């Protein structure tokens, strides 16, 4: 293997998932969610994936390319991510992202085509799931299309001697999986948060190479590979009538809560 690792990190721009429920306005006619008063951010697990890439680059040398597909991708959001230590930005803009949006399979097809066009890589990292789709398919789809082995749900990633060793999250622990490079790994938040970029790096990040493709440039017709369509979109109903239990002191309120629960036969 050559010196260093060539890593591609797939990053998706989404409305800040930590926004309050009122910030996600459901348009049931247009079948889409319209963010209100919240900024676009990089989907949190993709940030975790970028952090993994940065650590691997520190340990092994090499380069990191960020790959994002969408429409109206924010410069500021991508620059901030680039500034943490990525070397190259690859953007795929397509108007399909404007309307109902592509599904997992058309997105994976677009990203796989972009990766082919870019050329070689040792490791592709994606988030375990995007904060908007909550789907967890695109990473495994890319791997399938590029015919490389894939491991999902990584909480730790190490590369040694042409192999990547992954700790894969399980509900009651983890398992250890080894695959040969080139490979794809989907990343879970346990790996740790993305570091903050320095102001100075945000400035220089502007000068790093950037490529913009359309689906046409990649020779893909994303609409033809859509397999899942949204029929209905609604706001979930979760609200309940809350009985506030109070008292003259918090201690009294605590005691009353216990009494109330017994009254309701919940104990």
């Amino acid at each position, binding site marked *: 293997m050559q010196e260093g690792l060539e890593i591609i990190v797939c990053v998706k721009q989404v409305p800040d998932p930590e926004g309050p429920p009122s910030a996600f306005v459901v348009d049931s006619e247009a079948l889409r969610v319209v963010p209100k008063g919240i900024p676009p951010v990089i989907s949190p697990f993709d940030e975790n994936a970028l952090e993994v890439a940065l650590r691997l680059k520190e340990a092994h040398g090499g380069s990191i390319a960020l790959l994002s597909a969408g429409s109206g991708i924010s410069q500021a959001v991508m620059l901030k991510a680039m500034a943490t230590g990525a070397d190259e930005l690859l953007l795929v803009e397509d108007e399909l992202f404007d309307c109902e949006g592509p599904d997992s399979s058309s997105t994976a097809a677009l990203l796989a085509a972009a990766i082919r066009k870019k050329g070689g890589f040792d490791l592709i990292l994606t988030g375990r799931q995007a904060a908007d789709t909550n789907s967890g398919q695109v990473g495994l789809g890319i791997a399938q299309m590029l015919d490389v082995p894939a491991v999902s749900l990584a909480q730790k990633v190490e590369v040694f001697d042409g192999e990547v060793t992954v700790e894969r999250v399980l*509900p009651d622990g983890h*398992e250890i999986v080894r695959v040969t490079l080139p490979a794809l790994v989907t990343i879970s938040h346990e790996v740790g948060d993305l570091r903050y970029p320095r102001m100075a790096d945000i400035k220089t990040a502007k000068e790093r190479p950037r490529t913009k493709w359309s689906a046409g440039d990649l020779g893909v017709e994303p609409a033809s590979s859509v397999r899942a369509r949204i029929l209905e*979109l609604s706001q979930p109903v979760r609200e309940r009538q809350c009985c506030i239990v109070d008292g003259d002191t918090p201690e009294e309120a605590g005691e009353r809560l216990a009494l109330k629960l017994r009254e309701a036969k919940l104990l």
Partner: protein
Amino acid sequence: MAGYEGVLILGELGDKNQAAGITLELLGLGGKLAQGLDEQLKVVLLGNNVEGAAAELPQYGADKVYLADDPVLGSYNPETYLSLLQSVCEDEKPRIFLAGSTPVGQDLAPRLAFSMGTGLVTDCVGLELGDSPGLLCTKPTYGGNAMAVFVLDTMPQMATIRSRVGEAPSPDPSRGGEVTKLDTGAYTRPSRMEVAGQVKEETVGVKLEEARVVVSGGRGVGGPEGFSQLEEMAQLLGGAVGASRPPCDSGWIPPTSQVGITGKIVAPDLYIAVAISGSSQHLSGMSDSRHIVAINKDPEAYIFKVVDYGVVGDWRSVLPAFTCKLRELITE
């Protein structure tokens, strides 16, 4: 799309090599779909020494069971499992393929969907037959801030389902079904992946997913000491301790205790949320609980909109008095 028929379920094994709870739930759910279609319900089960488990499935409604029994299948290797499963799907051509939102289902279903060039909806909370007869799959998106109904345009129509969406049918020992053993020889070749072992966290006491009472703490609990207080209360109620994500990220409690869209999905009789604000991601994991209680010092906290009982106050004062009274009431 003629030729595609029946509902095929990915069976999984629970403790003691018996069919997992989720598999029985899927048999309940899949059974209704199969009935609606007037087609067969089938299960494919992969593992080591699983003939016993396979033999039990017809009682729960399986018309056919495909069984791959091989020492190599004793632990989950995605590539081996995939090649076997794909060959079953190509031979059987199911109209609908269902798996659980489990570590295996989450990993294997997307691989299978992409290998077969078909569509998949993950993490569904509802399934229904539409007209035509397409499968309508309901799932939360945007971290639970929206609920979407998807329809799939290709066969097989694939979905992974959360636990507790389906209901296990009561077993009917008089019901028969056909168990077919698959030839595993062709698939147990070496793969590009090596699964080198598992590290399990010991759970003491009641399992979070099975507990009838869950006491969860959030960022406002402030540290591991606070969680010992929650533990004390949970023990008193015969329940388990859970958490929102920040306490897990901070190491106050093991990450396996996380409740929410990327943690465990729970639906106990009683869920007590202590110093949790009520983010959509957390609510996605517990809002189906029968009764919910919140203790939070912020009267405006969103959590109060989605609970049955609330106390506004510092948990440090509320909780000890609550626990003390509970003990009194329980020992009465």
